[in-house]
């Protein structure tokens, strides 16, 4: 009798686990679809971004034309700020500080490529499930819920267009179920003819010099190690950057990810004295400390404890 109850209980457990897995696979398929749609679709729309007690409206345009990808974001409230990316070159313009930033990024974002191998990481650290279908910006959207299994990462809820997979609404949720940030399209056009002038920056942008390929003299082991980072976070990339166009100021940039959240580590020579400790900037937590003569800045869309743990886990390899 006891055996029969045990067996029945076991069967129940297995079948519920199976159902859970099916919905997992489906939900993970949606995550992949969302990431692909963001890059491959042409779309234009207006969206609202809410963070803390602040709400802002922006207009975005993304046009894919053969192998060329151009996108532009412009804030509609407050001082005019815009970002224009043409393939690997990103310009950002802040009218209030009259600053133009130029950022050359690697062609092709890493996420859609790394996602399959990172899916395991996502399911190891989040409960993933498909939720209801809701209407967002006049489109039917499939909701997906990602609940973190521990306090080292935030939860997420995504709403993706059922037809194309484009992300129409997203919420990031903190430990106390508070909304950390959310954005939602209020109006969006997916596909179709998108007028070219919508991509036109509001001021002429400088032309950066062409990129030059060269053999990597720095290949090999990193000069830094991250001992026991928070569960699930592993290094996905390490790059070195020239700062401010200077050849002397080189910044090491490492990225750790659990498949969904990412935390960046920036290491550069400490100039003057550094204010150490945690700082919060919107949805991003930042932690700064000095290691030897280097300033280590860690930041990401993760709880303050996660960012601090990673910052304190960094040390030079040869020590």
């Amino acid at each position, binding site marked *: 009798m006891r055996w029969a109850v045990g067996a029945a209980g076991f069967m129940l457990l297995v079948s519920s686990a199976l159902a859970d897995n099916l919905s997992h696979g489906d939900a993970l398929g949606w995550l992949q679809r969302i*990431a692909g749609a963001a*890059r491959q679709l042409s779309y234009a729309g207006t969206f609202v971004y809410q963070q803390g007690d602040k709400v802002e409206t922006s207009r975005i345009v993304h046009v894919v034309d053969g192998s060329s990808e151009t996108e532009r974001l412009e804030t509609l409230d407050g001082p005019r700020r815009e970002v224009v990316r043409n393939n690997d070159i*990103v310009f950002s313009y802040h009218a209030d500080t*009259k*600053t133009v930033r130029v950022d050359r990024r690697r062609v092709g974002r890493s996420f859609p490529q790394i996602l399959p191998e990172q899916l395991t990481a996502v399911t190891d650290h989040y409960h993933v499930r498909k939720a209801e279908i809701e209407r967002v910006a006049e489109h039917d959207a499939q909701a997906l819920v990602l609940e973190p299994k521990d306090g080292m990462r935030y939860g997420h809820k995504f709403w993706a267009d059922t037809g194309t997979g484009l992300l129409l609404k997203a919420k990031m949720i903190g430990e106390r179920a508070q909304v950390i940030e959310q954005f939602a399209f209020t109006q969006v056009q997916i596909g179709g003819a998108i007028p070219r002038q919508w991509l036109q920056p509001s001021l002429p942008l400088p032309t950066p010099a*062409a990129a030059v390929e060269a053999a990597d003299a720095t290949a090999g082991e990193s000069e830094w190690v991250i001992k026991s980072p928070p569960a699930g976070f592993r290094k996905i990339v390490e790059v070195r950057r020239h700062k401010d166009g200077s050849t002397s100021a080189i910044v090491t940039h490492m*990225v750790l990810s659990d498949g*969904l959240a990412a935390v*960046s580590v920036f290491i550069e020579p400490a100039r003057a004295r550094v204010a150490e400790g945690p700082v919060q900037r919107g949805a991003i937590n930042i932690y700064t400390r000095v290691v030897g003569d280097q300033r280590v800045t860690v930041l990401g869309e993760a709880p303050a404890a996660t960012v601090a743990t990673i910052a304190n886990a960094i040390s030079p390899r040869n020590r």
Partner: protein
Amino acid sequence: MVERERISALMDGELDDAELGAQVKRTADGGELARCWDAYHLIGESLRREPGFHLDLTAGISGALASEPTVLAPGRAPVAQPTQRVRTFALSMAATIAGIGVVVWMVVGQRSDGSGGRIDMAQSVAMSPRAEVATQAVDADVNDYMMAHQEYSPTAAMHGVASYVRTVSAR
């Protein structure tokens, strides 16, 4: 002291065109005046209670406080209403003298698990001394970092173009 008053005037946008260029050059040199500049900005940030990212400014303010305690004691300061000035100078100076500062932030080498390494070397866009002044903004480093960060963030990739809002969002 005269120099400090001129820094304050520079920040308030009160210098005329003739004085402006020379004062910017002297200030951007990186010496005592540059530290003074940093300190005044930090005070301004504190007064406005902005959750700034101060980093390199702390040495500047410590030095300035040691040698110039009157900065925080308006009643004894020879400069009239210094607190009123620091409230406004950050923006007004940016508007009057910063021009367009071009900040370049480029990938020079990459190591990725399993992919081997290579360098994307790039020449930098020439920067004027004005650009140096513009990048003194407290958040400059964090903006660079956040921009670089989102290139590799899976959630940012899912958000597509919308992810830039984290960087450009007004504070």
